[in-house]
């Protein structure tokens, strides 16, 4: 059977039961046994240890944990079973009908005490000064077995053999290995290790990285990261924290706990990094955050985490954080710190002045995919109800807006169709334009677990990403297409499925529009779409493409996961439609294990889209031109709503350059760094008269701002995030906002300052739950969502309303949201961005594990240990032609601009393709990207830029000019000066 990384608890179990049940939950027929006189019924395959735990009896254990398979090495969990000889380990012994188990007897107590005595004889007795004191399973077990004495003492001549004493009779103890402190977040102290293998197994079974091993044998057995030449930092370790979590001693210990002490309280909240939306326990002393621990009952992450969510929260306390509002008349002046009322009055007066002078539509907002649903809702309400226009857009414009369009047109709603658990039932997984091991690591771990259990993998990506081949995981087919040819590849796959008769006719007849399908068949059967005929264009060998299409169509449950490599193209929407077509063709929609799943980039990009951040849609994806929808909000907000869609981000910038768009409130987004064609963004911002940046840091956009409103981190506010599986997770306030206000309060202050100027009725929200009540009252897919429901269920997946009060894990089960599924033709149209003699290479951009988007948060953490700068990946063949060696500085130039960065030579990218990340403002990779964009949604074409690479010896003029301007712009006069 398939188990979960962290087992789900059986119905009836305590919802917040944090006990470690020892071994994973199983699914099977009921088996009844007796444990210490209590009858208990558990599924077949359950271990005796887990059965005992279900009955409330915790058998002592050290090497077992319920997020990994039983190992049976510590010999502490021995029990007696009537009718059986000996004392079997309860973790490795499955239950049988009528079994009678005794967990306590004199014999068992003696044995356990003896085992424990041996463990402790090779463990330092420095408990009082140990970082794990009070939070140590070894300590707990010593207590549980009643250990009172350790008879195995060091001999008088001190020729002792142990692993923890620095010195012995002969001088230095050859068995002592000093602490490895190379990882910035945790230490490895072999002196405290009991070699239970939990860390090694967590790395293998939970994370799937295989970075750890047991070195040697017998007394010489030690845990080792990598090889003897490695430290934790140089090994394959990705710092996910699973080993630290698994360690029953202080051997693997968070540095923050060593420094700050054991936490005394915890708050369950949701990570603010990627779209996986992991649940965490924030553990604190008072308002001092000690550590973030993945929450076992989190339904997205099932107790797992990655380096970002687990460790990279230090930015919240970083010295760069701005905590007081600041204003200035023009962007060449230094900032002036002011109190909140003055900042609000200044901003309101400016915005009002602009609207009076340039018209109602001359101002707008950009909502943030990092803020909560409630905060996003208020920002779009601000522009619709207070500014009186629909000029609202969000960073989804530059990432998943084509998903909204493509899935909306074909299926009727803009969202992934599955929950993350679904991957555990998938048989063939197709990953298109996504790099889950770096971008969505916790999902990647769950996927890799399924792949190790036998699911097949197809990867469509110009780069050989880690998921294509890494320890124990290997894609059956990697289709290394040329950037920009997604549509041709997806259409060719459909061609194979249709012409070879591999489509699911029953599904299509009952679920889809049959006439449209006929039309689609005519289109896609055309020989010009055959893999052989697009091979030259896409660079994908026809035989591989055919085989991959056949595998997807016939290999059982087929699930497609895709990312920004699909959307950020001039034909992003077309590829999304093509993907939706593939799933309908093969009937891979509407049940567990299949589906079409966009891997959302940011924590709340799904939510930001849901909340009406787009200029043409009110919350719940309802067009502003619909009078009945407008009426709902006009009544709720007591205002008139403009029936005309507003401006998208690129249109705002164009209008600013033209002089008709003058004011912008930009919450939690750094458009200067994240949006394409930096020169154009800078020109647009510079042309505005009031740019209000609401952020944690003086980001790059703030260099062009007149008002800076300090933001609050996810630790400092209440609200909800919606992850890539439409799961609405609670964000809970862990500490008071350091800047004084939660972000929704700041938006309310700004709205009220404006309403005071215009004489409108002020907003009176006192808690985000009231905002959610308003969302539920106005938006049918959220009608059943309240904070009480979230408190009770932990999380729900929308739609959640009267007909589905528990939410909707799977979409389109009985029928598509739009009724029938719509096949649409996907004609390949080449992008206008072409390579040529001057720009012969194609640049594609992406992310890396240690960093998150523009890096504003992660660059301010120790994650820079892994990735201190952006690096250009170039194929050795292209490098040799240009005289570029590994580590050289190179100039990366396109028609839009140029920058310099260092190069690394790798065959991960094919000849003709180069790749870099966009995490560092010093590089500003987006100086190079163009302003071409998706035909339907304006999503920028980040993934295809024709470039030239040449050796270089320093920063470009733009980099120097910009860095000088940025430094000048960041001057702050404090109130005291």
């Amino acid at each position, binding site marked *: 059977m398939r188990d979960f990384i962290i087992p789900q608890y059986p119905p009836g179990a305590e919802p917040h039961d944090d006990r470690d049940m020892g071994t994973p939950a199983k699914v099977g027929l009921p088996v009844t046994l007796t444990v210490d006189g209590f009858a208990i019924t558990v599924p077949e395959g359950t271990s005796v240890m887990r059965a005992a735990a279900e009955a409330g009896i915790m058998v002592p254990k050290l090497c077992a944990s319920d997020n990994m398979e039983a190992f049976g090495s510590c010999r502490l969990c021995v029990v007696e079973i009537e009718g059986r000889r000996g004392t079997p380990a309860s973790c490795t012994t499955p239950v049988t009908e009528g079994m009678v188990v005794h967990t306590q007897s004199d014999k068992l107590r003696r044995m356990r005490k003896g085992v424990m005595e041996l463990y402790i004889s090779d463990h330092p007795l420095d408990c009082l000064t140990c970082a794990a004191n009070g939070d140590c399973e070894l300590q707990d077990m010593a207590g549980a077995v009643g250990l009172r004495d350790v008879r195995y003492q060091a001999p008088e001549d001190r020729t002792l053999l142990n692993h923890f004493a620095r010195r012995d009779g002969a001088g230095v103890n050859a068995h002592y290995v000093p602490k490895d402190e190379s990882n910035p977040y945790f230490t490895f102290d072999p002196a405290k290790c009991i070699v239970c293998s939990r860390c090694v197994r967590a790395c293998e079974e939970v994370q799937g*990285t*295989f*970075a*750890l*091993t*047991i*070195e*040697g*044998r017998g007394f010489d057995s030690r845990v*080792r*990261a*990598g*090889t*003897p*030449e*490695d430290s934790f930092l140089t*090994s*394959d370790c990705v710092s996910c924290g699973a080993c630290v979590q698994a360690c029953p001693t202080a051997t693997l210990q968070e540095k923050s706990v060593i420094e700050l002490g054991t936490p005394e309280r915890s708050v369950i909240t949701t990570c603010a990094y990627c779209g996986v939306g992991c649940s965490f326990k924030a553990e604190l002393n008072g308002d001092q955050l000690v550590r973030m621990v993945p929450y076992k009952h989190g339904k997205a992450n099932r107790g797992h985490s990655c380096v970002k969510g687990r460790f990279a929260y230090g930015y919240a306390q970083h010295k760069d954080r701005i905590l007081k509002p600041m204003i200035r008349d023009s962007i060449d002046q230094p900032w002036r710190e002011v109190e909140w009322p003055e900042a609000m009055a200044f901003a309101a007066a400016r915005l009002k002045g602009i609207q009076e002078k340039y018209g109602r539509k001359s101002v707008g907002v950009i909502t943030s995919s990092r803020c909560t649903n409630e905060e996003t809702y208020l920002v779009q309400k601000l522009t619709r109800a207070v500014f009186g226009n629909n000029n609202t857009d969000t960073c989804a414009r530059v990432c998943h807006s084509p998903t909204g369009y493509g899935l909306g047109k074909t299926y009727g709603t803009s969202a992934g169709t599955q929950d993350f658990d679904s991957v555990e039932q998938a048989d063939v997984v197709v990953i298109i334009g996504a790099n889950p091991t770096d971008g969505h690591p916790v999902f990647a771990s769950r996927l890799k677990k399924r792949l190790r259990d036998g699911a097949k993998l197809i990867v469509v990506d110009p780069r050989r990403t880690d998921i294509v*081949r*890494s*320890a*124990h*995981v*290997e894609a059956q087919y990697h289709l290394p297409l040329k950037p920009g040819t997604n549509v041709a590849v997806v259409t060719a796959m459909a061609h194979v499925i249709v012409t070879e008769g591999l489509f699911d006719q029953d599904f299509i007849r009952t679920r889809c529009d049959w006439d449209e399908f006929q039309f689609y068949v005519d289109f896609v059967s055309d020989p010009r779409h055959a893999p052989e005929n697009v091979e030259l264009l896409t660079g994908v060998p026809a035989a591989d493409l055919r085989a991959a299409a056949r595998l997807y169509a016939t290999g059982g449950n087929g699930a497609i996961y895709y990312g920004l490599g699909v959307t950020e193209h001039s034909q992003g929407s077309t590829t999304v439609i093509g993907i939706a077509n593939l799933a309908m063709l093969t009937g891979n929609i509407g049940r567990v294990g299949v589906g079409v799943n966009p891997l959302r980039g940011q924590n709340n990009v799904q939510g930001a889209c849901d909340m009406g951040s787009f200029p043409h849609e009110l919350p719940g994806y309802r067009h502003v031109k619909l009078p009945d929808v407008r009426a709902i909000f006009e009544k709720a907000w007591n205002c008139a709503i403009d029936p005309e869609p507003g401006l998208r981000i690129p249109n705002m910038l164009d209008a600013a350059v033209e002089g008709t768009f003058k004011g912008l409130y930009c919450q939690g987004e750094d458009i200067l760094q994240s949006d394409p064609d930096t020169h154009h963004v800078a020109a647009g911002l510079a042309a505005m008269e009031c740019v209000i940046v609401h952020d944690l840091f003086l980001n790059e956009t703030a260099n062009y701002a007149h008002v800076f409103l300090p933001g609050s981190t996810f630790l400092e506010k209440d609200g909800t995030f919606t992850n890539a599986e439409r799961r609405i997770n609670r964000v809970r306030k862990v500490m008071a906002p350091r800047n004084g206000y939660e972000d929704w309060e700041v938006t309310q202050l700004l709205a009220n300052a404006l309403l005071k100027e215009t004489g409108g009725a002020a907003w009176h929200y006192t808690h985000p739950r009231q905002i959610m009540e308003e969302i539920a009252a106005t938006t049918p897919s959220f009608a059943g969502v309240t904070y009480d429901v979230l408190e009770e269920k932990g999380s729900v997946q929308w739609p959640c309303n009267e007909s589905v009060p528990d939410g909707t894990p799977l979409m389109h089960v009985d029928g598509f949201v739009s009724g029938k599924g719509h096949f649409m033709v996907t004609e390949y149209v080449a992008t206008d961005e072409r390579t040529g003699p001057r720009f012969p290479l194609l640049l594609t951009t992406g992310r890396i594990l240690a960093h998150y988007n523009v890096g504003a948060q992660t660059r301010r953490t120790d994650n820079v240990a892994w990735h201190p700068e952006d690096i250009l990946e170039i194929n050795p063949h292209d490098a040799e032609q240009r005289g570029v060696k590994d580590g050289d500085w190179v100039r990366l130039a396109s028609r839009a601009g140029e920058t310099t960065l260092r190069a690394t030579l790798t065959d991960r990218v094919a000849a003709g393709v180069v790749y870099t990340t966009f995490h560092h403002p010093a590089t500003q990779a987006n100086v190079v990207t163009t302003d071409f964009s998706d035909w339907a949604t304006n999503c920028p074409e980040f993934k295809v830029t024709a470039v030239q690479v040449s050796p270089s010896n320093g920063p470009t003029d733009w980099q120097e000019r910009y860095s000088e301007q940025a430094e000048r712009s960041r001057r702050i006069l404090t109130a005291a000066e």
Partner: protein
Amino acid sequence: MHVHAPAPTEEEIRGVVMPLASLEGPLLPMLHAVQDVWGFVPQGAVPVLADILNLGRAEVHGVISFYHDFRDHPTGRHVLKICRAEACQAMGGHAIAQSTLQKLGIGWHGTTPNGALTVEPVYCLGMCACAPAAMVDGKVVGRVDEARMHRILAEAGA
């Protein structure tokens, strides 16, 4: 001769192990092949084997370090293994081992200064009936006494 040999290149290692890649459970045969050719398993072989078999580097290291027979450093030109298991010790193996090491002026795992011979302990060669037993460059020798040991050492040039 192994002592001064340059570390093998990735291509050389691949050349030796790739013919074994289709075996079931190929890691151990590959490690034996590497050790047969170079006398030890060089660090440089770990990432190569990990790549070929799609394993973590740590896993390969874990396997190598589990078996005492795999060495991570070069040996002398000849390798003498002296059995240290119970039967051989009972038949005088311990004394012979001690006198041999003393004569050579080295400890267990040591190599003579002229690079001729490395002496290693081994636990049972399956030759208990002919104890005490030893093994010279893979060839077993039974009923080892001082005279026989002397001949072994002389032949090895130690």
